[in-house]
């Protein structure tokens, strides 16, 4: 069930250049189950900036009743968010959308992430490993400065890193790594920039895959029709990324 709550900020740490890990606590966490869902946060008490910011959930800790978000500070809103401290509260609406179907993973899954699309794959990896699924992580970043959670992913399975400038791991994109990996997995899950999602689904047309999309949003709950995409199902079919997704099976969304 979707809730709105002023949550307590537990910690906020810059874990890579302009990348912040923000943990908040409150009863809303008890509503969270699926990896890949997101929350909509209000960064100011005033109406400037006006709209909420959608941020994906990177880790759910039901026992501590807290969850962790990882976001990049790059605009007005996220920059204000990055200045919040343990003394502040955060207005959170969520959990929103539909996450990754973990029951579809089979025995072995590839988790393919790019940049700020990497965070939701962390909770996914935790939940898949808890079910005994072997996970392989293929993660792409701009440069060594932007890399985060490499060790955390490594604890859960094979982890391959690509950076665009070659300053860490393989030079280039995640697809360069995928070319050298065996095709012995049952399903893949991916989140990242749209061109990456396109490249990944073209690379594995015969595999079961689930992609998490990003689109400029208004309300975050499906009412405003800002984040629609056409689909391959018919000429007139469309989906709303926020409430029908953000995760869709590969081959459905025309981005």
């Amino acid at each position, binding site marked *: 069930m979707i809730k709105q709550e002023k949550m307590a900020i537990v910690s906020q740490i810059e874990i890579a250049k302009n990348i912040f890990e923000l943990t908040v606590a409150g009863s809303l966490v008890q509503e969270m189950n699926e990896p890949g869902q997101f929350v909509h946060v209000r960064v100011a008490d005033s109406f400037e900036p006006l709209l909420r910011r959608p941020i994906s959930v990177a880790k759910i800790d039901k026992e501590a009743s807290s969850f962790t978000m990882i976001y990049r500070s790059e605009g007005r809103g996220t920059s204000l968010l990055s200045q919040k401290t343990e003394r502040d509260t955060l207005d959170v609406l969520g959990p929103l959308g539909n996450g990754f179907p973990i029951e579809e993973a089979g025995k072995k899954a590839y988790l393919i992430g790019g940049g700020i699309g990497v965070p939701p794959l962390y909770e996914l990896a935790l939940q898949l490993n808890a079910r005994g699924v072997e996970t392989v992580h293929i993660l792409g970043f701009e440069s060594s400065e932007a890399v985060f959670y490499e060790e955390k992913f490594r604890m859960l399975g094979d982890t391959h890193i690509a950076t665009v400038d070659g300053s860490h791991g393989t030079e280039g994109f995640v697809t360069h790594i995928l070319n050298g990996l065996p095709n012995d997995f049952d399903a893949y899950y991916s989140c990242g920039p749209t061109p990456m999602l396109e490249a990944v689904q073209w690379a594995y047309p015969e595999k079961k895959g689930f992609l998490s999309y990003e689109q400029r949003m208004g309300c975050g709950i499906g*009412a405003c029709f*800002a984040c629609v995409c*056409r689909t391959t199902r018919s000429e007139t079919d469309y989906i709303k990324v926020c409430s029908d997704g953000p995760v869709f099976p590969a081959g459905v969304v025309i981005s």
Partner: protein
Amino acid sequence: MTDLSVQLPGLDLKNPIMPASGCFGFGKEYAQLYDLSKLGSIMIKATTAEMRLGNPTPRVAETSSGMLNAIGLQNPGLVKVVDEQLPWLEQFDVPIIANVAGSLAEDYVEVARTISKAPNVHALELNISCPNVKQGGITFGTDPNVAKELTRMVKDVSDVPVYVKLSPNVTDVVQLAKAVEEGGADGITMINTLLGMRLDPKTGRPVIANITGGLSGPAIKPVALRMVYEVRRHTDLPIIGMGGIAEVDDVIDFLSAGANAVAVGTANFVNPFVCPELIDKLPERLHELGYESVQELTGRSHRL
């Protein structure tokens, strides 16, 4: 006991607060969050004769204390709205105001004729002010004669009272208000969004795919308030005021300027519980100001 009720043509409102068209879909999303029966009314998303897929994305962009949108009247079309969305809304004890849009006058007439027969549609809101579609919309709302004629045509076929939604993108909004009054309008809703744009400073490109969009949110409240005030000076028609309402004093302001009820739009995106919160806060605020009913406060700025 503060009296929040408002009686308007076709509308027996338990309170003067309702979500504005286009900001609330057909209610399903918000029904997950609270009981829609609490609302004074619901202005449902614009309905056109045929299904519309709307504009390309990006469709929204944030601006200073506001946002631009160019959704493009995306909706499932008249048949689906009448067969699916409106019957679903019947479970709530709330009168519906159906927003009617089209490309040609005949489209408006067709939608109005059919949708006004739905049992829970108690009024129509004639959308002659959408700035984001190439045909129809605002083209009917900027020429007084065209607006008057369209109002008359829709009045002729509608089973329920007709409110006309005015655009702020005109030189003289009073002239438009008088024109639709002459056309037989039962009321006015105002204002729709203000035409605007935002550029990406890095590239110079418009942020919204449609290039321009409609500005809404707290940024437009002074313009909306001024227009409601001006129109109230020239007509006794009921006015449902809107434009940047987000807090209880915004409601007070619009009622003071002469609105009989108010609609809340963009604020629903910021705080999805804004409408029930405003309904809860209004009695106390009225009482603090020395008023025991909404009706008593309405239009007070004109009586000073």
